[in-house]
């Protein structure tokens, strides 16, 4: 067995190459998911890179990423499979024509029925199955990364329906029986906690909580995602965002917003933060007018502090 620590470091490095900077904790989750073949339930505030994690994993392992966005009213016809009704109808048409040949020389109803039974029945078969996201990931030849995004938005019926898939990597289609995964996919479920996820689901998953990154990690993320930002400005803007998160806001800025802001500053050819610049671009970070108004009075102090800290 290889040393787990080394494996984990390798994962972390691989992620870094594809531009996803993460800490050891996250890399450990991927390592466990791979080795235990368990799905990961990723929770955390919006915009900390939960979805990105799945994308990075797909890229790192060189597997196809299959994404299923959950929403209210999502059902199995949209998530798992549907019959190709049109083709099935055509099939019966063709069958009708061929039926004459088949029945030729049959004596009585009983023999005709027997012949019909012997006839290869493909009406309900995989050929007429239109695979949706979940089935696609089970059918993937060399495994896949399955992202079930925002599971908390789906109905609880759907959550219950997922249980079989998550624990056994198989799915039951009533007409066909059980379909097993060709090779176990790596499953990510993400949740923003708009509602509590059921215990049964939680029990089957590894649970990874991604919090907002600390200043160090966030600086690294900005370096990786927006390399054009100079070091001085980078420290300043990260410091500023970190101090914003301390305040009582309706919606605190997430990592994705920090990245957006860094890009904005680049666009404006900013070299360092000043109060006026921050005020003009604050709407990139804060998405509620109330928040912007509340922060406005402290803007000067926050900016000076961030600039001073970056020295």
């Amino acid at each position: 067995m290889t040393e787990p620590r080394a494996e984990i470091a390798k994962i972390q490095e691989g992620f870094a190459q594809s531009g996803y900077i993460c800490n050891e904790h996250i890399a450990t989750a991927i390592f466990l998911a791979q080795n235990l073949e368990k799905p990961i339930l990723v929770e955390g505030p919006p915009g900390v890179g939960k979805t990105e994690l799945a994308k990075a994993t797909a890229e790192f392992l060189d597997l196809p990423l299959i994404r299923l966005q959950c929403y209210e009213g999502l059902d199995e016809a949209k998530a798992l499979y549907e019959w190709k009704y049109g083709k099935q109808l055509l099939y019966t048409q063709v069958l009708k024509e061929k039926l004459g040949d088949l029945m030729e020389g049959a004596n009585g109803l009983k023999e005709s029925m027997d012949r019909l039974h012997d006839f290869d029945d493909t009406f309900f078969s995989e050929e007429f199955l239109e695979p949706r996201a979940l089935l696609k990931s089970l059918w993937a030849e060399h495994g896949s990364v399955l992202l079930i995004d925002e599971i908390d938005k789906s109905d609880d019926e759907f959550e219950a329906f997922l249980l079989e898939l998550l624990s056994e990597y198989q799915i039951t289609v009533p007409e066909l029986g059980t379909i097993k995964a060709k090779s176990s996919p790596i499953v990510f479920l993400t949740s923003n906690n708009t509602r509590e996820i059921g215990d049964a689901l939680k029990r089957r998953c590894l649970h990874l909580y991604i919090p907002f990154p600390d200043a160090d990690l966030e600086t690294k993320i900005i370096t990786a995602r927006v390399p054009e930002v100079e070091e001085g400005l980078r420290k300043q803007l990260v410091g500023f965002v970190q101090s914003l998160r301390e305040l009582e806001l309706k919606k605190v800025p997430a990592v994705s917003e920090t990245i957006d802001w860094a890009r904005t500053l680049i666009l404006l050819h900013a070299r360092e933060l000043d109060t006026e610049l921050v005020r003009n671009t604050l709407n990139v970070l804060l998405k509620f007018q109330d928040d912007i108004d509340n922060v406005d009075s402290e803007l000067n102090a926050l900016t000076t502090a961030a600039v001073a800290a970056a020295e």
Partner: protein
Amino acid sequence: MSQVLSNFVRALRAQDVRVSISESVDAGRVAELVGFSDRQVLKDSLSQVLAKTDEEKFAFNDCFDQFFAFEQFERSKAANDQESAENSQSTEDENADGQDSEEGESAPSDGNGQPGEAGSASDDGPSSGGTGSNGDPSGEQGAEAAADRDLAALLESGDAVELQGQLAAAGREVGADRIRLFTQRGLFTRRIMEAMGLDGLNATIDGEQRSSTPEGEARAERLRGMRDDFRLDVRDYVERQLELYTANAGRQLREEVLSKIKISNVDRRDFKLMQSLVRKMAKRLISLNSRRKKKSRRGQLDVRRTIRQNIEFDGLMFDIAWKRTKVDRPKVVAICDVSGSVAQYATFLLMFLYSLTEVLPKVRAFAFSNQMGEVTDLFAEEKIENAIKKALSLHGGGSTDYGRSFEDFESMALDDIDHRTTVLVLGDARSNFGDPRADILDKIHDRARRVIWLNPEGKSLWNTGDSEMRKLSPHCDKAVTCSSLNDLERVVSEILRTAV
């Protein structure tokens, strides 16, 4: 699964972390996979398998640090630092099987380079352990002779790591993890000492004493000092075990009692605990009822869905879908009596009301004694302690006047009550012989979906003295006694469940 892990799971459960059996099996697989040699990796991994909410993660971190704490190990580590590096390789195999983490943790810094010895200590465990735990030293004298010699030699060698390892092994032997009461500390300390060869040590000390040579006496003196120090170590160890496995047992018991006794009998000092209990209850109610229910409206055809659903029947409208409406959680208007007669309850009822505003999206809260005032905004802005204090000082203290208060309510909020509103009245209906204005309550009843009266007094006290339940209760859909947390939980969960 190893003994250590199952002990750890038990310690976690004592900290209110819910760990199911399948999760502890997973923990076993994880431990097998990552081994016990890397603390951080082990911690990260186990936390993902065992702790599945924010609070649980928090409790997990504390518990992990406490459970896998080795202070003595830390102390000796500095001294043996260089050698430990060489040794870590040879002890790897031992750890990989995840047999026991105490050994695993201490072994890498085994300064004397004797990993075999650490192993043998744990090998001894099961064989002599059976008799050892019976506290029957005579029967195992022979078997333990080796260990006896060890303790004296071990103490003298000053090898803290080895000592710690043996201590943990002896702890397992005598079942220190089953300690329940703090009065058992002495007992377990002695048992562990005995399992580690206290008798032998004492014999050695006596022997040296009797030899009456100056060196012998000096050695006896030294050993005695070491023995006493060591006893303190063992005591520390036992106390840590006690804390680990029973940390929350007392609290859990108190919570259980608190949720059953009458609120008026709750001690002031228990209020903090009560608060957390109310909050917990509210949280449980949210998670049970956070799902939006749907209800089909018969009679209105959902054309789009019907066509979609019937493609498989060749477009024949065979399986018909009706339009559905989503059922939202109920609108609640809560009116809370905070007057002198229910002073005991008032704080608690407000506490509950406050938690309710966190559970339900649409709650309007009112408080009154002789005049009514709305406290919804107060609750939204302030933290629970301040909100309750302010509500009490603004509206509380006066003598009750139900009539006047209902009049106030009529002018303030009657228009807001519709067929989806549940009105909750918390009070004892003692109106100081004033007219309770049951007619207004009747008006409320006509408009509202439900009126529920929660009375802290037992039914036998209703209608005695100035209690006006007789006049008021006919205008309620339900009037029940609600004097303990359990009552309250029952009523509220019913409100939530039958929401329409």
